[in-house]
Structure formats: structure tokens, C-alpha cells
């Protein structure tokens, strides 16, 4: 296959770098770090907390508070943008302080505080403020947490460790909505009960982080006395000069721009099949299950075969999903195939990107590098959703999918060349 051939060298270097100068094949036996398990548990509880609320929020706002959700949608977009930008800043702060756990704790704590606010929310503005707080908390915690994962993991098994974390994280994401709807099934207007349960899980998550996750140092080394202060804005330029990270950001940005939201994919599938609309929510659950099942195996593959290869191949899975949706034939087969491919896409890209970014970033700027990669992906995917909406109306769903698919094909084929040789000069630890 073309991709694998052109990427073979990159993969080798990947392995070389991951091994920190040792031989390519990871000889070190995989030993699961306790810290990563605890971080995974923190994410699991936090995701149960946040996804249970997110799942019922539209119903709560429209059905219970009697507010319109249109304006809320606009704010949600703004919040997501803010959350994406906060990531770099939080990563940078984490690197400056050298204590990722403290920054992550602030992020998890802010989201927890937002849950408390939810118990007292009445009007539109208080609700908006609370949701903004939750999103910003999510933005703050992500990069320092991934930095903690990086410093806790065996470098040879970095992606696999990220896979373990993402698996636990997704178990929470899958459980949260079920829990929330179960509560509402028993107590039809029991929104406050959902909020209380959500708060309980948030508290446990924060407690596990505070009590069981060690305050590992990452970022600026404690010894080697501080170099002259780096002006606040210069970090971006420095980052882009990192050999490799800049190119990774470019590739992630290009691929992100061609990643239409999975909401659109589900809509296309639904338009084609007109399967019973009440099963629509189950599509998300299906993708999520595939993601959590494959997170570890694909992380393992990334450690052995090359993270960049797996990251790019994940987008090939996405491409295959686009093609399936654009096919003229309908039925349950293509729909299920698409769910699996989407799950593969997430499993192959989410944790692997963080692993790749941390591998390409020097230790003293670890969280900044991870945060930058995640911000680039989040922002480019938001732009992609907006752009695809326009294509959808201009060309129709199937044609729009084909157009984006063609562009994605080019991007997937070009990516190995852009990433070729990344990580030459850099190593972790």
C-alpha cells in the first residue's frame, strides 16, 4: 500500500525516537503505570459527570426551563473556541510552573465548581456561565494531564499508555448519558437529581486526582537554574521551530480541516437509510464502544509500527467512512461499517496524537506542545464543520462527502511526506 511504503522510514524513526536511542523494537516489558490508571479513573469519573449533564442539557433547557436552544447553540460554539485556546495557555502555564498536576487540578476543580453552580442555576445567563466554566475547566486540564501521562509512561509504550487512559475515559463517556437517562426514566423531571449525581462523580474524580496522582515534575526542570524569562508570546514561535512539532501541527491542521463532524456523518446515514429515528442516539454509543475497545490495541500498534503511521491511517479509516456514506446503496451494513470506521478513526488519532506531540516536544515544553496539537485539531475541526455545512447545502450530502473525501485522500497521501523524518533530532526524556 502506498501509504505504508512512503511512511516506512518515518515509522522507523518513530520507533528509534520512542526508544530514546535504544533499538527500535520495544524490548522493555510493558508495565502499566499506576499514575496512568488513576488518571484514567479521574477522567472516567469526570466524563460520567460531564456527559451525563451534556446528554440531558438540551432537554432540560427546552423541555423544563422552556428556553430556546438556538441562542444556546451559538454560545456553545463560542465556548468551544474559548476552550480550545485555553488549552495552549494552560499547557504553557503548566510548563512554566513545572507542576502539571496543579494545573490539571485547577481545571478539574473548575469543572466541579461548575456542577455545584448547576444546582442553583435558573436563568439563561447563569446556565451559560456555568457551562462556560465547565468547558474552560476541560480546556485547562487536558494538556497538563496528557503531560502527566507522558512523564509516567514508559517511552517505548507511550501510545499504549495513552490508549489505556482513553479507554477509561470513554467508558465514562459512554456511561454518563445512560446514567442520566436512567435517572430521568425513574424521575421524569429529575434534572436536579442528575445534577447531584453528576456532582458526586466530579467530586470523586477530583479526589482521586488530588489524593492518588503524584505531583510529578514536568516542564521546566527544577535543577538547572531558570534561563532568562521567556516573553509570553514567544512560545508559539519557539514551538514552531521545534523540528517535527511544527510539521505535525501542519498535518494535524490539514487533516482536521477535512474532518467533518460525526454529527454530519450520522445525518447522511440517516438520510440515506431512513432507519427508525429513535435509534439515532445509539449511533454515538456504537462509535464510542468501538473507540474504547480499540484504544489500547491501536496504541500498541502505534508504539510498534509508528505513531505517525497509525495517526494517518486513522484518517484513512475516516476516508473509508466518507466513501461508505457516499455510496449509492443503503442498508444496515454500510451504517455499521461506518460506525466501526469512525471508532477506529478516534482510537487511532486521539491518544496517538497526544503521544506523537509529546514525543516531538522537548520535556520543558511538553504540555505546551500537547496543548498546541490539540488546539490545532479542535479549531480546524470546528472550521471543518462550518465549511462542510456550506458544502452540504451547495452540493447535497453525497456529493459534499465525495468532495471532502477526495481532498482527504490527497491530504492522507501527502501527510507521510510532510511528516517524513520528524523527530530526527528530538527525543523524550
Amino acid at each position, binding site marked *: 500500500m502506498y501509504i505504508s511504503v512512503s511512511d516506512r522510514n518515518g515509522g522507523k524513526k518513530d520507533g528509534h525516537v520512542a526508544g530514546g536511542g535504544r533499538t527500535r523494537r520495544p524490548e522493555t516489558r510493558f508495565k502499566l503505570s499506576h499514575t496512568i490508571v*488513576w488518571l484514567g479513573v479521574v477522567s472516567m469519573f469526570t466524563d460520567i459527570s*460531564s456527559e451525563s449533564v*451534556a*446528554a440531558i442539557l*438540551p*432537554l432540560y433547557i*427546552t*423541555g*423544563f*426551563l*422552556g*428556553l*430556546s*436552544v*438556538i441562542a*444556546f*447553540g451559538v454560545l*456553545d460554539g463560542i465556548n*468551544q473556541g474559548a476552550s480550545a485556546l485555553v488549552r495552549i495557555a494552560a499547557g504553557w502555564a503548566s510548563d512554566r510552573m513545572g507542576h502539571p498536576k496543579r494545573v490539571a487540578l485547577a481545571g478539574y476543580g473548575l469543572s466541579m465548581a461548575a456542577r455545584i453552580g448547576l444546582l442553583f442555576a435558573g436563568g439563561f445567563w447563569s446556565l*451559560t456561565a456555568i457551562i462556560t466554566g465547565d468547558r474552560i475547566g476541560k480546556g485547562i486540564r487536558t494538556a497538563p494531564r496528557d503531560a502527566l501521562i507522558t*512523564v509516567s509512561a514508559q517511552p517505548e509504550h507511550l501510545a499504549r499508555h495513552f490508549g489505556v487512559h482513553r479507554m477509561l475515559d470513554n467508558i465514562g463517556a459512554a456511561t454518563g448519558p445512560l446514567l442520566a*437517562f*436512567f435517572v*430521568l426514566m*425513574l*424521575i*421524569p*423531571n*429529575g434534572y*436536579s*437529581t442528575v445534577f*447531584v449525581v453528576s456532582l*458526586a462523580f466530579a467530586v470523586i474524580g477530583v*479526589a482521586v486526582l488530588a*489524593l*492518588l496522582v*503524584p*505531583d*510529578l*515534575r514536568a516542564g521546566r526542570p*527544577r*535543577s538547572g537554574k531558570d534561563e532568562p524569562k521567556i516573553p509570553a508570546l514567544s512560545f508559539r514561535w519557539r514551538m514552531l521551530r521545534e523540528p517535527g512539532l511544527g510539521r505535525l501541527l501542519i498535518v494535524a491542521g490539514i487533516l482536521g480541516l477535512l474532518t467533518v*463532524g*460525526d*454529527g454530519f456523518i450520522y445525518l447522511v446515514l440517516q438520510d440515506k437509510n431512513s432507519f427508525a*429515528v*429513535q*435509534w*439515532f*442516539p445509539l449511533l*454515538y454509543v456504537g462509535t*464510542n464502544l468501538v473507540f474504547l475497545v480499540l484504544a489500547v490495541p491501536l496504541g500498541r500498534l502505534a508504539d510498534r509500527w509508528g505513531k505517525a503511521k497509525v495517526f494517518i491511517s486513522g484518517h484513512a479509516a475516516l476516508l473509508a467512512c466518507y466513501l461508505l456514506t457516499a455510496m449509492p446503496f443503503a442498508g444496515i451494513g454500510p451504517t455499521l461499517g461506518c460506525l466501526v470506521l469512525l471508532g477506529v478513526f478516534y482510537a487511532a488519532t486521539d491518544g496517538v496524537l497526544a503521544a506523537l506531540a509529546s514525543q516531538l516536544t522537548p520535556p520543558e515544553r511538553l504540555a505546551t506542545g500537547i496543548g498546541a496539537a490539540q488546539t490545532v485539531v479542535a479549531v480546524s475541526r*470546528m472550521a471543518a*464543520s462550518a465549511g462542510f*455545512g*456550506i*458544502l*452540504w*447545502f*451547495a452540493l447535497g450530502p453525497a456529493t459534499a462527502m465525495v468532495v471532502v473525501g477526495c481532498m482527504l485522500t490527497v491530504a492522507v497521501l501527502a501527510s507521510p511526506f510532510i511528516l517524513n523524518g520528524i523527530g530526527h533530532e528530538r527525543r523524550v526524556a
Partner: protein
Amino acid sequence: MTRRRWETDGKLRWVILLVLTVIVIAGAGTYAAQAFQRFQAASLAASSADIASGGSSLPDQPFVLFRNTASGVGYGQAATVLLSAPGAERTVGGVACDRVYGTSGEVMCLRTNRGLVTSYEAAIYDRNWQEIRSWALRGIPSRTRLDEAGSTAATTVFVTGHSYAGTGFSTETVISPVDGGPGTGSLEDFALWVNGAQVSPADRNIWGVTFLPGQADSFYATAASNGRIWLVEGSVSSRKLTAVHDGAECPSVSPDGKRIAFKKNMAGTVTPLWNIAVLDISTGTETLLAETRNVDDQVEWLDNSTLLYGLGRDDAAGDSDIWRLGTNAESRPELFIQHAWSPSVVR
């Protein structure tokens, strides 16, 4: 990289975590159990509004159909009061609905079916509260209207994004014959004409259909794109929407067909503040009414000079009242039916 050893097996940490977890889970569990008991008690308790006994069919005289939001038995169910005595006891039909609309012979009901996979449904009932037909909806119920003859139904739902995909909400509006014949599909696919030219904005949203008196083909609705909002005149047969006025949401045509009441966003920011306005169709004059509270409802006409609309109660979430308001600018709102939502006047 410095890695300070952390005693994960430090007993104290585990004890603190364990105690905290137990307290938190016990607290949330107790709260949930109490909420469940409260719900069971409330749903068995006598209604906080006066409820008439009997009445297994729609009244023969003109009546107002609405969603009963009085706590206790019958909460969330479709109910009726006679138009001649709106403050008197209500008759509850035994059918749960989030939004209702009626004609003399039929009731249209949009509802949420709660479950591990929560789904949404539209159902049409005959005058004896027997279900004629139901079909699945693609999102959370928002608005519904029937044409005067009761042959055609319009529904608007909020299609929600998902928390992973994230991106916001949009509406989906569909007009379909109640007998199950092929509907229009989403009104977003209709041709949209603004100022004599067809426009095809990518992010258009259509909501809040109101049928012209005695018509099933002609209607008014709201169209929005890029932050602009139009009142559009629509035709099912020609699959066309034509913008006729700016900034009018959730229109409602008066019984004589001469005026349109709608909600108008006075805030000009992302957080809407909707007031009620009335548009004279022949002259194009717009009259802003005196209701200063935020009205997020599709207004209903009580008669040719009076409007009805729902307003949430500040003191009790999930409860609301129906208010009446004259269509001259001086008229002041008055309480019409307590503990009620989604009014529909059947003459």
C-alpha cells in the same frame, strides 16, 4: 525529568479517599432516593389544580386545549377547559404531551418517551382520546400546529448536536398529512426567496409554522440564516418560501386571517428577549405589545383581538401559566389559565 516518589500506598490518602467517596455516594444516593419518593408521592397526590371527573372525550362547546402543568395527578397531560369558563376546573385527557394543538375532532401531541434511549414522538388522537397514528420525531418537541380541517400537521423539533461533535442545535420543521401520506420532508429543502431572488444559505433554519385559516397548503413560518430572521410565506405544493417581513419569529395568523402575531427579539444579542408584536398583513404596520417579560412561545389567538401565550413560573421550574393580552398597544397582560402551557383555542 524529576520523579518524586509518591506513596500511593500511603494509608491516610486511601482512607480519606474512601471516606470521601462513601460520603459523596451516600449523599447523592439519598438525594436521588428522596427525589424518587417525592416524584412518586407527587404523581399520586391530588392535583394542585381543580380537575373535573369524567370527560373521556373533547368538549362539544368551544374550548381551550393545553398541557396541564399543575403538580400531582395529571401533570404533563393534555387538558381542556371550556372557552366560556377558562378559570373553572379542567378536564385531563390522560395523554402525556410536551406540546399540544387541537381541532374540534383531533389532538396533535408531541412528546418525549423517556428511557435509556430517549426518543421523541408525534401522535394524533381522535376526539375520544384514542390514538389514530404516531410517528417518530428527530429531536426535542418545540412547536406544532394543525390546519383548520385537521388534515395536515406541522411539527418543529430541536435536533441536538452531540457532546462529542459538539456543534450546537438546529431546528427541523416538517409538514405532513395526518393520515400518514408522504410529507414535505424538512422545510429547509424548500426554495427560499428573499427580495425577489432565490438564496441558498448553508445554515438556514425553519421553525414555527402557522396555517392560513381554512388552508392546508399555505402557511407562514420563520426562516433564519446568518443571524438574519424572516417571516416567510410558504406553499407546500410549490415547495417555496418567500420572505415577507423581517425579524418575526413563531408567527400565528389571526382567525380572520388579517393579522399575524409573532415574537420579536428586542435584545439584539445572543441572549434573546422576545416581546410580542402584531403585524397587519395588508398595511405592513407592526404594533409592539406591552408584555415586557420574555415570551418564548408560539402565540395563539383567543379571538381576533386577543392573544394567548405561555410563560414559565419563576417560583416553580417545570410549571407555567397561560396569559392573555389584547392586541392594542395599551393592553396589559392578564392571567388566563394557571398551571398550563401550550394553549390551543378550538372554536
